[in-house]
């Protein structure tokens, strides 16, 4: 089984405002980027399911060939300041993404 973590050079999350979390995936090798891009494993519906969000809360995936990078942006369940929110910078929201299985290879 191959996961996104096995293929990507960078898998990170960060605030893109107090209301959004953005997920970035970068690859070292063009073939790994192309494999993930064409697998459609990062389709919005699958990401929504993975993060327990409605599909309408997911923007992307955006495939940026020039950067060998893929971006998805999530409307946070709660903004950073919400009582009970646990990630002010949004910097540790990558794991549900990193552990996704990538078919093919």
């Amino acid at each position, binding site marked *: 089984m191959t996961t996104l973590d096995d293929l990507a050079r960078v898998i990170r999350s960060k605030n*893109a405002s107090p209301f959004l979390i953005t997920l970035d995936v970068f690859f070292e090798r063009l073939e790994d980027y192309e494999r993930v891009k064409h697998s459609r494993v990062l389709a919005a519906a699958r990401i929504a399911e*993975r993060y*327990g969000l409605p599909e309408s809360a997911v923007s992307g995936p955006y495939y940026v060939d020039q950067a060998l990078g893929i971006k998805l942006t999530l409307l946070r369940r709660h903004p950073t300041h919400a009582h009970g929110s646990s990630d002010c910078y949004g910097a540790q929201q990558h794991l549900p993404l990193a552990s996704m299985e990538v078919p093919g290879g």
Partner: protein
Amino acid sequence: MSERRELRVYCATPHLGHGVDTDSLDAALALKPDVIVAQGTSTDPGAYYLGADVSYMQALEVRSNLEAVILAARRARVPFIVSTGGSGTRAALERELAGIDAIAREQDVALKLAVIHGEVEPEWVIGRLRAGARARRIVDSPDLPEELDEETVSSATRIVAQMGPEPIMAALARGDVDGVVTGRSLDVGLFVAVPLMRGFPTALSMHFATVMHDGALAAVPGSGADGLFGILTESSYTVFPTNPQRACTPLSVAGMSFYERSNPFEERVPSGVLDVSQATYEAVDDRTVRVRGAAWHPAPYTLKLEGAKLQGYRTICMGASYEPRFIAALDELLAHTREQVARAYGPERVGSWQLEFRVYGRDALRHDADARSAPPGEVGVLIDAMAADQALANAVCSVARSALMHVGYPGRKTTAGNIAVPFSPVEVEVGPSYAYSIWHALPVDDPVAPFPARVETFPRELT
């Protein structure tokens, strides 16, 4: 158009206070920059800093970085442009100006600066709304009103606006200032002001500014405390770090369209949208990248307003356990704890307090199906009480801590206490808590008028 016409910009640091590498700065001065720029405002650390009007950066670090920028600009005989003061409030900028005064006095440099505040008065915003302006929320979050209303404005503790490049351009156009110091500002605006004044193409200038403003984060290895040199021409721009230990690569520069942005193809600024989907990134040598190809779509001018409102007072306690039976029963025990607090402080005070738990080591960060796939060996329970006043928050936290400490559960043998609390005070007053209640785009006719510049000389006259 002559390809020889160029503009040289040095970004001294991705954020004032995170560090200025003085070797990189010296190397940049040898390349004769036309302007030195650095940003120092952000919303990333959260609404508290805007609401409580305190800096999220250490004053000494900001001051030493400002000093490096000011002295470098002085040596190069070029202007500098900085935003400073964290959340960018009026008081925060005034505190930084006191620091600049001290720098000018200690370093014996005379400075004539344009000072532009980014805090706006609620009356001004209300006036705009009454004149018919409709300010839509920038993010479709259910936590924000779709359109800004007077009540939301009035209930905000403080409001800042991200000024665009125009007030900075107006200040520089005076021709007699050594630098511009702003409060809350569009980061891109600081970097695009001089390119636009000199008549470089808007699309190229905006893209140049979006890459430049995060300094050496556009290089490999990236750094949050080092600079970036950029050379803008009529048809393209090049960027490279002056630190020989770093390099810009096509991937590192293209990757900047991702950083803290929701959409890697579009950059929204007050006067329009930058489209970088067709941009190209080409290696000039092993540490310099040439960029071209962005497009620009002008739009009616809007100012981004950021407002914070008080949402309560907070008291916390952290308790930990490695007892397997306690951890197994934890959900029920937390429910019991909540009931105990409700018994003590409800129902007559219902609604005036809230209690949240986060179980570190288990699912404080994860909410997906896999989060609880294996029992954790050790957990930390954050007891997080919020209430309408500090005394009630303290009381709620105290009752919750006591209840969780002493609650019974099946097979309990640790009858003297369930949780390890790391230190005294056991419960910690966190103080006021703020929420972003305004995150709206306000249409304005004149992008300069809300941000009048004051020209001031430093060191200030002693009174």
